[in-house]
């Protein structure tokens, strides 16, 4: 593995990293997913060597780098605002790491041109960073980081400052760059979209703890705990006794998508709940007659109507993902 982080803890301003442990494999795109304030940036800066951890060790290719200064680590860090050097042209930005390493001029030129071609920024080399668009800045930042051929690319919310269309396009392009340039990335974000479309594996970070690590599909379909489930959007958690594909909870009988037994909890995303006046004739298997209370929050477009009509409704909801395996829970 390229990077191994072992038991990192750090109190830094309002952030508290607690015993963070994970590793990143060569060629992998590892995503750390968490809400803002979870301490993701602090974790990246600890790995980059900008912030010193209170405890824990960091290994790069098996070598302990915890006590090395950032310039001796061989990691390239791209902060959320990209931090392009405003006093240098795009060319000099990309060439910076190579100049520091005293690479011969001709080779610097060749390398910069090669990278900027792949990233589609060849026409920008003479410009100053402040004249670039957000998407262009991101490409320059990536070129500058990749120029030094880092063992690992540390990306802090790389798409957060882009408008929706640019974001979508650049996420797709990043997949291509990774194929063509073959880098390993540790990428922190709060966006499920980025996690799902770019991540090989994902670690969910909540309140400074890395609470679940696994392949993206697995984490999203089998959250390991109630707090992960809530963060991933399963806002309704129902607890009950399962037997085969049947869950009995509070007098309701819910059909499960998989077999389970014992006391379990299931999570239901609000967007999976369909409200209708009449029972729906569709593939939805779990349909209930229910009363919508006036103080129910966040019913989307139905909200104002339901608030007035405290009447009888039938709601139908389908359960898309089971949460826990059998036996988990209280």
């Amino acid at each position, binding site marked *: 593995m390229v990077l191994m982080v072992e038991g990192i803890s750090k109190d830094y301003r309002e952030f508290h990293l607690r015993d963070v442990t994970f590793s990143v494999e060569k060629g992998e795109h590892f995503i750390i997913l968490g809400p803002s304030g979870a301490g993701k940036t602090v974790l990246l*800066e600890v790995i*980059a*060597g*900008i912030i010193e951890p209170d405890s824990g060790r960091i290994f790069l290719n098996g070598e302990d780098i915890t006590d090395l*200064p*950032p*310039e001796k*680590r061989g*990691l*390239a*860090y*791209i*902060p959320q*605002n990209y*931090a392009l*050097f*405003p*006093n240098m042209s795009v060319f000099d930005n990309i060439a*910076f*790491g190579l100049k*520091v*390493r005293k690479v011969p001029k001709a080779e610097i030129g060749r390398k910069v041109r090669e990278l900027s071609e792949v990233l589609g920024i060849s026409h920008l080399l003479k410009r100053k960073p402040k004249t670039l668009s957000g998407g262009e800045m991101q490409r320059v930042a990536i070129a*500058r*980081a990749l120029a*030094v051929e880092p063992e690992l690319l*540390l990306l802090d919310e790389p798409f957060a400052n882009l408008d929706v269309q640019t974001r979508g396009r650049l996420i797709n392009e990043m997949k291509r760059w990774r194929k063509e340039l073959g880098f390993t990335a540790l990428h922190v974000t709060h966006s499920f979209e980025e996690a799902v479309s770019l991540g090989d594996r994902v670690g969910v970070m909540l309140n400074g703890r890395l609470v679940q690590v696994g392949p993206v599909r697995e984490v999203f379909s089998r959250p390991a705990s109630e707090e992960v489930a809530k963060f991933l959007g399963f806002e309704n958690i129902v607890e009950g006794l399962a037997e085969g594909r049947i869950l009995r909870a509070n007098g309701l009988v819910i059909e499960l998508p998989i077999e389970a037994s014992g006391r379990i909890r299931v999570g239901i995303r609000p967007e999976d709940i369909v409200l209708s006046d009449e029972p729906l004739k569709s593939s939805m298997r779990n349909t209930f007659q229910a009363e919508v209370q006036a103080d129910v929050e966040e019913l989307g477009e139905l909200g104002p109507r339901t608030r007035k009509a405290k009447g009888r409704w039938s709601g139908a909801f389908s359960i898309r993902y089971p949460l826990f395996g059998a036996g988990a829970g209280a």
Partner: protein
Amino acid sequence: MRRDYTLYLFAALGTFLIAYIAVPIAVIFLKQASDVEMLVKTLHDPYVIEAIRNSLLTATATALIALLFGVPLGYVLARKDFPGKSAVQALVDVPIVIPHSVVGIMLLVTFSNSILDSYKGIVAAMLFVSAPFTINAARDGFLAVDEKLEAVARTLGASRWRAFLSISLPMAFPSIASGAIMTWARAISEVGAILIVAYYPKTAQVLILEYFNNYGLRASRPIAVIMVSLSLGIFVILRWLVGRKNA
């Protein structure tokens, strides 16, 4: 059109101060224009030339020394939190609130003969009262440089020194330069402390006072005019150079 009377009133009030600064400068030039003979005579006075040279040299030396020590200090104040930092910050501003005669007394009591009546003494007095401008400007300049820029430069392989030289220093340069110009200007306008510490070698500021006491207004005015022209001229040119580089 809607009239913004509040703004007009404020502009009128502000104009008072502008006029108050501009008028005496204009008047001294106008008055001198009617006495060109004395001006020419003064320009040929070797004492005057010598004194002006002393003033320019000591003020420039002061600005350079302030840069040498003030820029590193400004960087530390901008980048590092340490116990007693606010005390250091406050101390930097102290020279601005101490009467300059008191500064002279303090310096003389502390360094006595080693600065008395020497170029060292002039520079010592000037540095004490004018260094805060460079320190504060450097600190503000470095504070305005995003720390992430240095962090990124370092992950790319640059040492802290290299990151400072290639990123922070060039970016903070306009602020540091205008601080140094303020230091220079404050230094060349210093009299009080110099009078006490180093009456000799004579600086133009002290000479003006001496001529005024010995020969009256008519004799001291031409030196004043020459000093104002030089100081203002250099001040304006330097500010223009920095502003142009900044744009």
